[in-house]
């Protein structure tokens, strides 16, 4: 009787606490990997190889991790529009679901940096001023003080950060795409990375104080405006006054 009750209780408890979702999740994950593989074979394998082993034109994707896939595909850099000095940012051709499936497939080939998840609490707690200090010390050399971007050698460039989402900013830090150095968790921990992303978003989104920001490049567009509008306008006024001179 005791045994029976115990068995019944165990059964009920099992029924109550059984990790029912896991089987479904695993199935979903497997499905994502399967779908991702289909997408991969259709869209990526011609350059990166049927086994993602890389080739003459493209690097191996084994071990790059889901963060790299999400960064490259969600920023539209992959698939490449045309070979050039550097992949350009454009509108992504895959939906976020498809990108996640591709990421799952590449992730299944061997680990790597995972796509970061930023919670609202982390975002709210991130220290903007600290992010700014880290940005100026680590990023401004190439991306310019307020993320306007700047050229590197031979047609390569550090891109404008105006359109980069917080997730993409952190993915770039963790995976070091193209010419960009990699900033691992040893250099910038999670809180630091979120703070940098928050600073970049702030300087991109904050309304510009004092009028139009002239493309955020400072002295070069300022000089151009001073000459074209300032001097040009005043010379036009000189001509106007000269033309109205009474005989």
């Amino acid at each position, binding site marked *: 009787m005791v045994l029976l009750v115990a068995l019944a209780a165990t059964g009920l408890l099992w029924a109550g606490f059984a990790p029912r979702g896991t089987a479904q999740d695993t199935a979903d994950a497997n499905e994502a990997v399967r779908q991702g593989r289909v997408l991969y074979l259709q869209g990526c394998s011609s350059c990166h190889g049927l086994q993602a082993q890389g080739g003459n034109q493209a690097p191996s994707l084994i071990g790059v991790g889901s963060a790299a896939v999400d960064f490259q595909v969600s920023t539209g850099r992959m698939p490449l529009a045309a070979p050039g000095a550097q992949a350009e940012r454009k509108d992504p051709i895959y939906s976020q679901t498809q990108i996640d499936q591709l990421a799952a497939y590449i992730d299944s080939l061997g680990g790597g940096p995972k796509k970061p998840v930023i919670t609202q609490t982390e975002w709210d707690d991130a220290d903007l001023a600290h992010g700014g200090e880290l940005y100026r010390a680590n990023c*401004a050399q190439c991306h310019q003080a307020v993320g306007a971007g*700047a*050229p590197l050698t031979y047609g390569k460039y550090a891109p404008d950060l105006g359109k980069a989402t917080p997730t993409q900013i952190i993915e770039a830090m963790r995976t070091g795409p193209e010419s960009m150095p990699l900033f691992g968790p040893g250099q910038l921990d999670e809180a630091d990375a979120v703070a940098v992303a928050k600073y970049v978003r702030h300087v991109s989104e904050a309304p510009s104080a004092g009028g139009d920001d002239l493309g955020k490049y400072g002295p*070069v567009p300022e000089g151009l405006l001073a000459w074209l509008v*300032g*001097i040009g306008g*005043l010379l036009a006024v000189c001509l106007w006054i000269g033309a109205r001179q009474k005989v």
Partner: protein
Amino acid sequence: MTTVPPPPLVKRPGPVRTLNRAIDERFGTQAGLRRNLNKVFPDHWSFMIGEIALYSFVILVLTGIYLTLFFDPSNTEVIYDGSYVPLKGVEMSRAYASTLDISFDIRAGLVFRQIHHWAALLFVASIVVHLMRVFFTGAFRKPREVNWLIGVGLFILGILEGFAGYSLPDDLLSGTGLRIAASIAQSIPVVGTWASFLVFNGEWPGEGFIPRLYVVHILLVPGILLALIGAHLGILWHQKHTDFPGPGKTEHNVIGHRVFPIFAAKSTGFFMIVFAMLALLGGLAQINPIWGFGPYDPANVSSASQPDWYIGFLDGSTRLFPPWEFRGFGHTVPAVFWPTLILPGILFTLLAVYPFLEAKFTGDKESHNLLQRPREAPTRTGLGVFAISFYLVLWISGGNDVIAKTFDISLNAMTWAGRVGAIVIPPIAFVLTRKLCIHLQERDHEIAEHGIETGIIQQLPSGEFVEEHRPKLPSVPDHRRVPTDRVALPSAENGHARGDLVRRAGKAVTGFFVEEEERLPEASESSPDRPAGKH
């Protein structure tokens, strides 16, 4: 009913006139005042360019005074606690913190800062345009060489003053600029290190350079600028303005408008327009957003760090110059020495001595009060365009990173284009400009000799086709003639016009002095009967 006849009207002197008389009774200013207010200035539009510089300077002084009330020129480190959130709690100098306060916490601080900065850009830019006008019209020739030298001095001091102002806020951009300036000072052979210590009050980045820079920016250089502007205008006043050749104009007269009232009204209006332009720029276009650059930290640097436009050509020359370092005799001369000190040294020296060089090579020792059109001096115009194209190549190269990024050009390609361009473009520009000037001269002669083509083709009885030419119309005086203060106005072809104009002009000026005319013996000199005083 008897009507009382109205009392005779007696015009009572107005307050201005009363004041004028009161001052004159005490200081005897009337004669000088009349002489100067009667001064005649010519009317060409290009003579107003220098005024832009003058008015920008006035606005710089006015806005600068406002900024000094709130700026704290100190290197002392503080923790920022103002209203700009992304820098809250960051360590910075008081100079930077007070500039942030001016930008975000002080009423109208930002717009004053921006107008001040735009006025600085316009000040130097208008000096350059004015200099080009003077150069291409030959206005620098004898007797005006000294004023040319003063102008070159104003140009150089304007650049220095602008750079000092750009460097004061102690943000990352200005600190980067100062770091480069310190390196340039250090690159001078033998005395470089000491020169750098002298300028920056010790090792870079020391603690005392902002107060030093501040004194230079608000006292020393503006004081010299003011003195030189006074001398520049004083000499102009004394020597009288040049003018383009035209009907009735000779080497010995000035035709235009008197200082009072027309020239004064015109200039006041133009001052307002310059002020309006600067207010528009300061209110609508952000300039030097120091909060974006962050506080200066010697370990940090931002890409696309540029100087203000007037230093841009030196930034460009540094970017283009090959990294040639000279070692010998126990000294190293770094590559930066040549493009940043030797090159501007040569450029500004050539600019300063140009009037003397031209006089020497052309053998022209005469005094000139009439200007030349650029085409009338093809070699000079060619040399001017040579210099401008060289400057432009350096200038564009100074912003080559921003241009490369904006237009998707390889930075390396931009650098090499600049290197080749700086050597190849100026000579080509010289030859083309000279040819163009000569061609234009020939065309002028053609029109003078054969008239203007009408486009009407006639067939002669012999079968030959010829185009009809219309003779060039005699030019009509387009200037109202008023008495000149140099020598007598040459009598015009048609007597009635002269009398009429002189009478009208005389009437325009005598009204203001009517009372004093009766009292002062000098008054007779400005009467319409004797238009040419020997003032």
